[in-house]
């Protein structure tokens, strides 16, 4: 395309200048070679191994839960396979007491944040008890309305700032979610008060079926941070070390009183949007195959094996252990008491108004029969 004549306002050069400022950061390439040593996070060998263990756990979780769903043992499931680095390396960079606001796809990081596995399964299955968290657990249950978690995160972060807590708030959204008004309201509000928030955009390529390119004219999603006057960076979402480093630095930056940071992770969802979705309707298999070559496990496995920190036996051990954890959690879930309407009614208000009091009596009467 020939360049248009530049008038008094050079619109093209303005947007190009902005967009060229958002390179995708990487530490490890697809084969596990260190391509940017300056960005290598300060992790001990034990921590590197622990991070890899979590990624393997995440992959096993996704595979097992997918099967359990197909067997009808769990309710609907939004698969996270492919996004393990994006979800679990970002959570791994958080500190004690940091607050997490996940979406319906982010149950794995919520479990790593401290929620018992059984509760994740209760949530999929449709039990209120899946969302009952102890007071000290710094997290919200999985958010279903895309964008709501961003504005709530802005509120929790402002609260942390007012309490002078030495903690950050982290929340996730997908690429489609960045088109929502609440996305902008959330990052703008957090920026306006310099609140300690980390906004993660997991760009997995699709909002159900709609490709990322149809969501916006913006070349990157990270650049949307500019509109709120906050930093935004783009990292390789299949590279756990780049993600860890980005979140760690964003955390330090926020805790130093500089305000929020937006991080876009370039990742891919291997499976369907949910178990009732069929990706063959909107994407070719070869795209999936290309992304599988960039898998986080391949590069971390190579990187750690070369350092003498990882082996096939070790990986199998983690897989078997995860399967055992899942089996046990499913068994525990099976012991859950059936839910009662009267119990739901009692959770509506602290002091029940007349309509609720009346209905509690009616339902308790029926439930005794």
């Amino acid at each position, binding site marked *: 395309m020939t360049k248009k004549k530049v008038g008094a306002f050079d619109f093209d050069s303005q947007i190009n200048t902005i967009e060229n400022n958002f390179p995708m950061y990487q530490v490890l390439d697809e084969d596990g070679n260190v391509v940017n040593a300056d960005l290598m996070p300060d992790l001990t060998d034990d921590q590197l191994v622990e991070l890899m263990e979590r990624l393997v756990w995440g992959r096993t979780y996704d595979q097992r839960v997918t099967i359990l769903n197909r067997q009808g043992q769990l309710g609907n499931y939004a698969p996270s396979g492919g996004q393990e680095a994006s979800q679990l390396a970002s959570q791994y960079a958080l500190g004690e007491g940091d607050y997490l606001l996940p979406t319906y796809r982010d149950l794995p990081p919520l479990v790593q944040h401290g929620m018992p596995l059984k509760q994740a399964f209760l949530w999929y299955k449709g039990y209120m*008890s899946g969302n*009952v968290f102890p007071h000290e657990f710094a997290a919200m249950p999985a958010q279903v309305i895309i964008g*709501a978690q961003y*504005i*709530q995160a802005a509120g929790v972060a402002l609260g942390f700032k*007012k309490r002078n807590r030495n903690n950050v708030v982290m929340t996730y959204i997908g690429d489609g979610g960045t088109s929502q008004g609440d996305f902008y309201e959330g990052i*703008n*509000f957090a920026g306006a008060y310099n609140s300690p928030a980390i906004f993660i955009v997991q760009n997995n390529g699709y909002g159900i079926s709609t490709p990322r390119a149809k969501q916006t004219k913006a070349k990157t999603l990270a650049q949307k941070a500019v509109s709120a006057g906050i930093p935004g960076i783009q990292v390789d979402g299949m590279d756990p070390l780049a993600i860890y480093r980005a979140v760690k630095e964003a955390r330090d930056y926020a805790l130093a009183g500089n305000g929020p940071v937006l991080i876009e992770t370039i990742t891919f969802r291997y499976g369907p949007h949910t178990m009732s979705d069929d990706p063959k309707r909107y994407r070719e298999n070869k795209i999936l195959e290309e992304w599988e070559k960039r898998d986080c496990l391949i590069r971390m496995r190579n990187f750690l094996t070369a350092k003498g920190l990882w082996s096939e036996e070790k990986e199998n051990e983690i897989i078997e252990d995860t399967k055992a954890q899942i089996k046990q959690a499913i068994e525990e879930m099976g012991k859950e008491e059936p839910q009662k309407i009267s119990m739901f009614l009692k959770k509506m208000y602290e*002091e029940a108004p007349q309509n609720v009091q009346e209905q509690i009596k009616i339902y308790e009467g029926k439930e005794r029969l």
Partner: protein
Amino acid sequence: MAQKTMVQAITDALSLEMERDENVLIFGEDIGMNGGVFRATEGLQEKFGEERVFDTPLAESVIVGASVGLGLAGFRPVPEIQFFGFAFEAMDAIMGQLSRIRYRMGGERFAPVTIRSPYGGGVHTPELHSDSLEGIVAQSPGLRVVIPSNPYDAKGLLISSIRSNDPVIFLEHLKLYRSFRQEVPDGAYTVPLDKAAITREGSDVTVIAYGAMVQESVKAAESLEKQDISVEVIDLRTVAPVDMETIIESVKKTGRVVAVQEAQRQAGVMGSVMSEIAERIFLYLEAPVSRVTAPDTVFPFGQAEEVWLPDAEDIEEKVKEVIDF
């Protein structure tokens, strides 16, 4: 005790609760230095500082969404939506999120948020400043919708709302802000939530109203008294969920009901109140359960408000219809 307008009583309530509980935060558009567009938060920033009384970006969804977050972080947020017509921008935050927090977390966590917002016709505002949207939020289980009709109740109900650990949508009728004064005690006191008031006792017909329609109903009742018709006026105060006990007791006595709301016939909360009456005490009724409402059009442009809004004359006419049935 002093004679106070409703807006002064509201400022009073806010100031007292700020003093009482350091977790109370007040925020919204232009509520800080400017004291809010109706001066409801006048002087509060000066008194309590910018950490606790602060202006927000012009963004209703995050004002409510952040209130949920602040509530979960241990605060007691009292955000203002500048006009309730702007609440459409915050509908997920209010109805999809705030209303459900306690339930979806199994009763273990809650967001004690009181959203204050002006609404109501008669003052010639631009579009979407005066609409009666209480019926929309009233349909959300988990919320309380509170609408005071006078300065005394406004102060006591607002204090109860702020102290409640459940979310409250507290709607302040624009025309009532400064239209009359009433004796309002200086200190803190509460008026109970979920409890209607018998504003005026009577024996022939029960008129149920809320907000600015309470005054119109009392005016109608006074005129009807001269015609030997005794009208009992009930002020709902909490318009959702409704205090049916008080209504049922009154209607058992009178046998006749006129439900009055400023909202359109298809909106508001009276449709539900009427069906509850019909279902619960059908055999006590001497006439059809009737209503006075605005017509089912969009809220009118300023100059048409007088002909559009229901008033004492409409109520009087409907009461006579019910008496003569």
